[in-house]
């Protein structure tokens, strides 16, 4: 699946991350968007959390989009300091995807630069784990994008090792058959 395409389920889930928004005018018949709001109409100046995709559309109804906590100035400072220590996953599973989408919606060039810097530093740190046989515990601290990079990297390393030892012509049991078998044995 092409990343960011209509069919990409990661793209869909990234667009579900909540973003704070604030309405500037009364929106008739849209009270249901704000879960804490009871009446039928959405009053002006109401703040609530909307998924990213909805926030992008709400913008057309003159609604302001605010940056989530992890892209605000105070958190940016700690990102600048040392991105490899911060647990981005605790902020958002789709930190980078949400960030890139927000730079387009909110037209924030600084954020773009920051994301690039953070990603470069995190990848440098990740490659260390990929090359040396690492503990899978770090997966708990990675976002979806980083997990996919990590898994692809590990797979390539294993294939390279197999090739060096002339093991590539060995036929292996498909992972589709092995995984559930292992699970059954554990029971």
């Amino acid at each position: 699946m092409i990343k960011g395409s209509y069919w990409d389920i990661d793209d869909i889930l990234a667009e579900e991350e909540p973003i704070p928004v604030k309405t500037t005018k009364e929106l008739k018949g849209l009270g249901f968007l704000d879960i804490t709001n009871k009446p039928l109409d959405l009053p002006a100046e109401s703040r609530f959390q909307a998924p990213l995709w909805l926030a992008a559309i709400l913008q057309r109804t003159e609604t302001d989009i605010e940056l989530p906590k992890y892209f605000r100035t105070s958190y940016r400072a700690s990102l600048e300091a040392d991105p490899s220590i911060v647990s981005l996953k605790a902020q958002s599973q789709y930190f980078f995807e949400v960030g890139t989408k927000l730079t387009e919606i909110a037209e924030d060039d600084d954020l773009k630069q920051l994301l690039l810097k953070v990603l470069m530093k995190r990848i440098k740190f990740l490659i260390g784990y990929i090359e040396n046989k690492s503990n899978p515990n770090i997966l708990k601290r990675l976002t979806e994008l980083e997990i996919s990079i990590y898994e692809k990297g590990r797979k390539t390393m294993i294939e390279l090792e197999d090739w060096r030892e002339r093991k590539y012509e060995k036929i292996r049991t498909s992972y589709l058959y092995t995984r559930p078998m292992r699970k059954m044995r554990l029971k």
Partner: protein
Amino acid sequence: MHAEKSKKLVRELKTSKWLPPYNVALISEISQDMASLYEKAVSDLEDRNTDSALIKSSLVNRNKRCVLAYLNYRLTKLECLRLETGPNIPPHFSNQLNKDEMDYFKQYSALLQDYSRKVSKSLDLTGDLQPPKDVFVEVRATEDVGDIVLPETGQVSLEKNTVHLLRRSEAAGLIRQGVLQHIN
């Protein structure tokens, strides 16, 4: 009402290693929601409430995208399964699929075989990309299968922990399915 059901549907795909069971109930709920949202959007347009109509129609589109992506993801996985392990659905997967998906798998499999035959009579398109070093491979049976007949070797009796020398092309499928183990 932020299309949470669709979000749940798509998230289900992430929770399982292969595919989660086909969620008929949730999909029919979503399609009902979509129908009612569409009606509301139309009546909003009649009232000239364009903001509300915009949001509601985009909710409909969002739900549509999620359900289509869900179905497409499952079909892609099925196609991969066919290429990876051959024309049979592994028994522990069959209750994850609904009837239409089973049909899709069978028809895809038939198409692939037709195509394979057109390209060349002796070539298996799902086989290895690298040329093998040996025609024969040494394999060990990991479970009792009993007597089976292979197209070139003839009859083999696969009992647990017995070692056989089989043609690579014949053994490959069985190894991928975990019946045999490739040794040496």
